[in-house]
């Protein structure tokens, strides 16, 4: 360091200060004064003048006012300025620098805060604001500082607000303001902004102040409103959809009831003429009114057989309509599968024998919990198909096993089989496998549809495994009687 002057009082400091743009390093001078120096400062505005004056050598201390982090740089100090004083000065400078940095950090934090921060003094005047407060209120810093806090209070609440403020002053603790209330501030343009305010008391130079942190909750309110509206809309839509569904259900029920009534009356109307057709055909066939020749016998036979077929069709339609309308009452009981299978097989046996078909039962006895008559109906329908589609000399096997907590009953035949693409359709009403290529087989086309409905009414499933020329295997599941989940 270079001596600037050789004559100086210890207590008196002549200071040369570069102060470009008039920016102050006054705090350094203030610090020197506080440290006990008597300071006389010469201020110069540009670096050239600073260096000229410095060469004059009349100064104890030269401070380059070009600031680093807001603190003037100590450019030089005079010789009489001993080591001790110099250190002291350096310490002062360091302290000043730290203070400035701290202040600047505080400023930065304050200004960077997303929430508006205002400090209010005991008279309710705004003494500190940040950038967010300007943005939120629409007032500039200059417009806010020194104003009463009520400048931001909605007009109708202003008179009450000063009372609240006094109450807070009596019990100054950190807490949210107006907890549970919808708070608003009034902007300069008169617009209301929903806010959340937290208050905390602070002490400044022995005086109490209140810091208010004001958060703009416009977005949150909007989101809340959107969620609420969305919820209300969904609720309304759901209610409307439910009502629609109810109406549709009622309509469907009504349609179903009308259909059932129609089918019942159709059945009645068709039976009445069938009654006499079948009856007289039977009477003629008995030949009690006189003998018939062979041809006449055959013709009467055709009438009789076809009218019985028509009757079967009517019975099946009536049955299916009854099942579909949900009017099927299952009379569940516990019974052994083997006996029921034997009974169903006994009914079909004459037809099987007529075609020289072997009819076998290979299953174990399994106790079922089902409608015994309906179970036999399902099995009978499957057996009827098996007999119908199995060529003479073939074999039909009925088996049973316990599988997945249900009894599975199967009917396998050595018949003509069914192509894979027809497997789903054969359970449809009036569908007859291969009907387009082999001609309509005798039957109603309802047997499998009825079987499927009956099985499903029991909670079971029906399916088919088959391929043309390789026979068919129909299987269906039925609920086991309680405690019968292991095959005997």
């Amino acid at each position, binding site marked *: 360091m270079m001596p600037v002057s050789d004559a100086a009082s210890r207590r008196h400091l002549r200071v040369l200060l570069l102060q470009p743009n008039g920016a102050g390093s006054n705090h350094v001078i203030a610090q020197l004064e506080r440290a006990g120096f008597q300071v006389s400062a010469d201020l110069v505005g540009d670096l050239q003048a600073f260096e000229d004056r410095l060469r004059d050598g009349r100064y104890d201390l030269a401070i380059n006012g070009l600031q680093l982090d807001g603190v003037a740089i100590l450019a030089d100090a005079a010789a009489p300025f001993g080591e001790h004083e110099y250190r002291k000065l350096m310490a002062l400078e360091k302290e000043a620098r730290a203070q400035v940095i701290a202040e600047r950090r505080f400023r930065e934090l304050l200004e960077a805060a997303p929430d508006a921060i205002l400090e209010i003094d005991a008279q309710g005047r705004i003494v500190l604001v940040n950038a967010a407060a300007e943005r939120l209120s629409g007032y500039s810093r200059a417009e806010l500082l020194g104003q009463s806090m009520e400048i931001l209070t909605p007009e109708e609440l202003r008179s009450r607000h000063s009372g609240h403020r006094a109450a807070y002053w009596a019990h100054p603790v950190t807490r949210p303001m107006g907890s549970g209330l919808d708070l608003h501030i009034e902007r300069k343009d008169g617009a209301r902004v929903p806010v959340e305010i937290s208050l905390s008391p602070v002490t400044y130079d022995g005086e109490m102040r209140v810091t208010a942190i004001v958060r703009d909750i416009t977005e949150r309110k909007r989101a809340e409103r959107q969620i609420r509206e969305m919820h209300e809309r969904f609720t309304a839509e759901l209610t409307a959809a439910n009502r629609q569904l109810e109406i549709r259900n009622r309509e469907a029920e009504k349609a179903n009831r009308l259909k059932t009534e129609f089918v019942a009356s159709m059945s009645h109307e068709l039976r009445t003429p069938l009654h*006499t057709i079948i009856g*007289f055909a039977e009477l003629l066939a008995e030949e009690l009114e006189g003998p018939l020749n062979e041809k006449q016998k055959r013709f009467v036979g055709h009438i009789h057989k076809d009218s019985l077929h028509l*009757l079967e069709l009517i019975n099946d339609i009536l049955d299916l309509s009854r099942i579909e309308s949900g009017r099927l009452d299952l009379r569940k009981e516990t019974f052994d599968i083997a006996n029921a299978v034997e009974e169903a097989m006994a009914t079909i046996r004459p037809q099987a024998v007529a075609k020289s078909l072997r009819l076998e039962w290979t299953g174990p006895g399994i106790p079922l919990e089902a409608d015994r008559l309906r179970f036999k109906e399902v099995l009978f329908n499957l057996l009827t198909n098996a007999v119908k589609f199995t060529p003479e000399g073939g074999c039909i096997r009925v088996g049973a096993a316990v599988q997945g907590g249900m009894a599975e009953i199967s009917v396998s035949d050595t018949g003509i089989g069914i192509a894979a693409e027809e497997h789903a359709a054969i359970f449809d009403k009036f569908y007859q496998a291969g009907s387009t290529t082999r001609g309509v087989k005798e039957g109603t086309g309802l047997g499998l549809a009825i079987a499927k409905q009956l099985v499903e009414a029991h909670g079971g499933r029906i399916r088919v495994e088959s391929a043309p020329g390789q026979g068919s295997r129909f299987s269906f599941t039925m609920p086991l009687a309680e405690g019968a989940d292991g095959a005997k």
Partner: protein
Amino acid sequence: MKRVLVADDKASSRELVRTVLERCGYEVIEASDGEEAVDLARAGRPHLILLDLHMPKLDGFGAIGQLRSEAAFAATPVVALTASAMDVDREQALAAGFSGYITKPIRLATLRSEVERLLG
């Protein structure tokens, strides 16, 4: 000879039943509606009555109601002969006092055995 009253609004149906029953050796009298059936029953004292359920003027239920209300017919077998195949109709008919229920179309064997059972 046992007498059977057959009530049906359809002539062909009456003829069918008459033919079957006469061959079995019964005497048959015919009514074409419910009112006539009740009148003929009172006049003719049949041993068995076959009533269609759907008839003009007075249906089968009306006829059985009148007949069963008269002491003379308290024990006379009366069979419903109807094209209604619904279970509810059968239950209703039996509850109304019918002794039997035969669904049309009849099979001759069924008719014969039912008549025999009741007149036995």
